[in-house]
């Protein structure tokens, strides 16, 4: 044994340092103990956040990644720990979040013997990861880790799982680290085809009613400035997918709001009126398009994406501009002629007015004693000067957060879009606050969702993470209840919830809080909540049967917008 040899676990730590890892979310256990032992010596270089359940670790890593743009890192043990991270891995896959998850695994000689805490992690995670790889010897660690970070980060980001056998953690090896810069079978960013750039520009130049639908691809590509330049130069109104929110300030005159099932009235109507539809870094999810057979049939479709598999997947593109959004948007903008579409842009206004009069006005400023969800979100947004990060759980709280929170800077919306994971909110908010410690992080969750990962209050307690938790408590699984009311003859099958005293629960974890049920109490509690950077739990007793409107019923035409 030469003196320069180190263990596989130490190699993993050094590789993390080489990749610039600053924060690790994790939970120790039998098959990962050598790694945790090595981590003990690296605690001054990397911060480890001990969560209370492995699902919390992955969601926290997602929240961290979404606000920082960095790759989230998770370490857990084998077996049940590995299966506990599955939800977060699937969530990161569908929402394109870069993440490297290291799972412990039994020693290689015990593989496939049904050993204690053994599970086929690679087999389980292959369909829900960009790459999943079992490391069976220490010598492979630098190579595999370098590759993992490269794959997770480059192109369309996503999760990578490394299944690290215990013997590989212990074995000695000669450490040499080289970051990965090339994999011959993996072309992360397709080269820009100049022809498609000029075709796209030509279509936009002759458009009378162009409309941009913007997704997370703009944020992932750091292309916010390029997007704004394009929209302003050709005066193109824009609308957002759930994950695209915050890429452009809410109050920008070309920002027309959100798309889809609970999106803004005008945005959905105009989708079927525009003549050129410019989809940027979005994937035409069914919650955005609703019925495909009648979706934007009148329009020429331009689709900007980094992932060729998204082209023609749901909506056929007339022009597909492949590449990194930062480069493709800039390339197209260069060929655009300055244009004005004043009449077209102002045609959104009448719909905005109808929506305001029939939905928004009463939602944010109710005339009745009951507190409404939109009111809470709007007041919290206001109290933070619209500068906070909005994290949501899933359901009504999420749609209301998306509709009523206002954004002034990018990477300010953290939500589980594709997978719709209840329980995402609390751990994601923790990760977001750790990633952006100088910003206010507001979590909106329901009484249902918070109880799915409520144990993470323990993580807040241990690390003193200043998350503002707003529980919108209607004693219902609100979104399901809403569907039961609208589509299931008001048969409220198992959606009513008897809840604990959330403020008392928070108190048990050393977190201050208040429970409010009147408009005045709400105002005071919000002011108290944002007066410092401490964690806070605000339980808001909201109207029991609040509805998220407008709504396009699932499978209906996107123009079939119900306002009541």
């Amino acid at each position, binding site marked *: 044994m030469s003196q320069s040899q180190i263990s596989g676990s130490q190699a993993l730590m050094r590789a993390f340092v080489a990749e610039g890892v600053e924060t690790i979310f994790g939970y120790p256990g039998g098959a990962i103990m050598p790694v945790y032992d090595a981590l003990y010596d690296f605690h001054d270089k990397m911060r480890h956040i001990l969560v209370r359940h492995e699902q919390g670790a992955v969601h926290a890593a997602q929240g961290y990644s979404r606000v920082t743009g960095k790759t989230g890192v998770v370490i857990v043990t084998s077996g049940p720990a590995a299966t506990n991270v599955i939800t977060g891995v699937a969530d990161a896959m569908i929402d394109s979040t870069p993440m490297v998850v290291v799972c412990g695994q039994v020693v290689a000689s015990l593989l496939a013997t049904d050993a204690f805490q053994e599970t086929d992690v690679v087999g389980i995670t*292959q*369909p829900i990861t960009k*790459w999943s790889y079992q490391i069976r010897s220490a010598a492979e660690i630098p190579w595999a880790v370098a590759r993992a970070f490269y794959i997770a980060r480059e192109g369309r980001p996503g999760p990578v799982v490394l299944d690290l056998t215990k013997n590989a953690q212990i074995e000695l090896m000669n450490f040499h680290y080289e970051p990965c810069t*090339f*994999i*011959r079978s993996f072309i992360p960013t397709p080269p820009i085809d100049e022809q498609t750039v000029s075709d796209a520009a030509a279509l936009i130049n002759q458009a009378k009613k162009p409309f941009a639908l913007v997704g997370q691809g703009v944020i992932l590509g750091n292309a916010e400035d390029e997007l704004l330049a394009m929209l302003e130069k050709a005066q193109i109104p824009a609308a957002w997918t759930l994950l695209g929110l915050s890429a452009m300030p809410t109050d920008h005159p070309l920002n027309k709001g959100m798309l889809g099932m609970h999106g803004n009235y005008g945005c959905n109507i105009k989708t079927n009126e525009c003549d050129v539809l410019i989809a940027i870094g979005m994937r035409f999810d069914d919650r955005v398009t609703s019925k495909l057979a009648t979706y934007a049939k009148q329009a020429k479709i331009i689709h900007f994406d980094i992932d060729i*598999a998204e082209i*023609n997947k749901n909506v056929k593109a007339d022009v597909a501009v492949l590449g990194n959004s930062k480069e493709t948007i800039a390339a197209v903008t260069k060929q655009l002629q300055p244009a004005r579409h004043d009449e077209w842009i102002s045609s959104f206004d009448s719909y905005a007015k109808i929506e305001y009069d029939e939905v928004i006005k009463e939602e944010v400023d109710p005339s009745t004693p009951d507190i409404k969800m939109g009111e809470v979100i709007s007041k919290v947004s206001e109290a933070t000067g619209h500068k906070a990060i909005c994290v949501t759980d899933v359901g009504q709280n999420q749609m209301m957060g998306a509709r009523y929170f206002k954004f002034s800077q990018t990477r300010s919306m953290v939500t589980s879009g594709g997978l719709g994971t209840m329980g995402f909110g609390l751990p994601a908010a923790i990760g977001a606050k750790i990633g952006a410690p100088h910003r206010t992080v507001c979590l909106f969750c329901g009484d249902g969702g918070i109880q799915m990962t409520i144990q993470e209050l323990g993580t807040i307690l241990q690390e003193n993470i200043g998350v503002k938790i707003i529980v919108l408590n209607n004693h219902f699984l609100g979104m399901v209840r809403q569907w039961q009311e609208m589509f299931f003859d008001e048969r409220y099958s198992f959606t009513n919830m008897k809840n604990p005293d959330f403020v008392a629960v928070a108190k048990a974890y050393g977190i201050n809080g208040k429970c409010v049920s009147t408009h005045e109490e709400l105002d005071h509690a919000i002011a108290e909540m944002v007066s410092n950077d401490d964690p806070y739990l605000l339980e808001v007793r909201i109207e029991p049967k609040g509805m998220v409107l407008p709504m396009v019923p699932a499978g209906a035409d996107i123009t079939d917008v119900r306002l009541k």
Partner: protein
Amino acid sequence: MEKTLYTVIVFSENRPGLLNQVSIIFSRRQLNIESLTVSASSIEGVHKFTITVYTDEEEIDKVVKQIEKRIDVLKAYYYTDDEVIYQEVALYKVDTESILESDEIEQLVRKYNARFLEITRTFSVIEMTGHTDEIKELYYALDKFGVKQYVRSGRIAITKSTSELLSKFLSEREEEAKG
């Protein structure tokens, strides 16, 4: 929509778990794989999958894009039957006695360009290469004399294009790696 038999050819790095990654892309869409042949390709270190499946062009296009998206997959292509030269191999086991009784089996072997692979005192094995329908035809013809066992391989296929697309891809990638 009209279903066509497509031949999907996938070139991948030689790493464990690739077959699962490729096959789940079919199963997620409830596409039944008609045949599957996996082996080393003519290029060292590169594995080749030849998969046949009935579907329509829109679907196969999406499937192939998803396959190619897998990190360790180099390239994936799809072809219709008129774009490839393809072949299967089949083995038929018959009683040697029934061969000796008449010359009918021998005539079938000649007619179908098949051959005797093995003849023992008790049984004989006939081998035939060809397309699925020809192979089945011979089976039905032989079965009149009693086929004891019958196996058919998956399809292997070669494209009609003059250059090997993968070699071009690999040399391009090699250039990019250098530069």
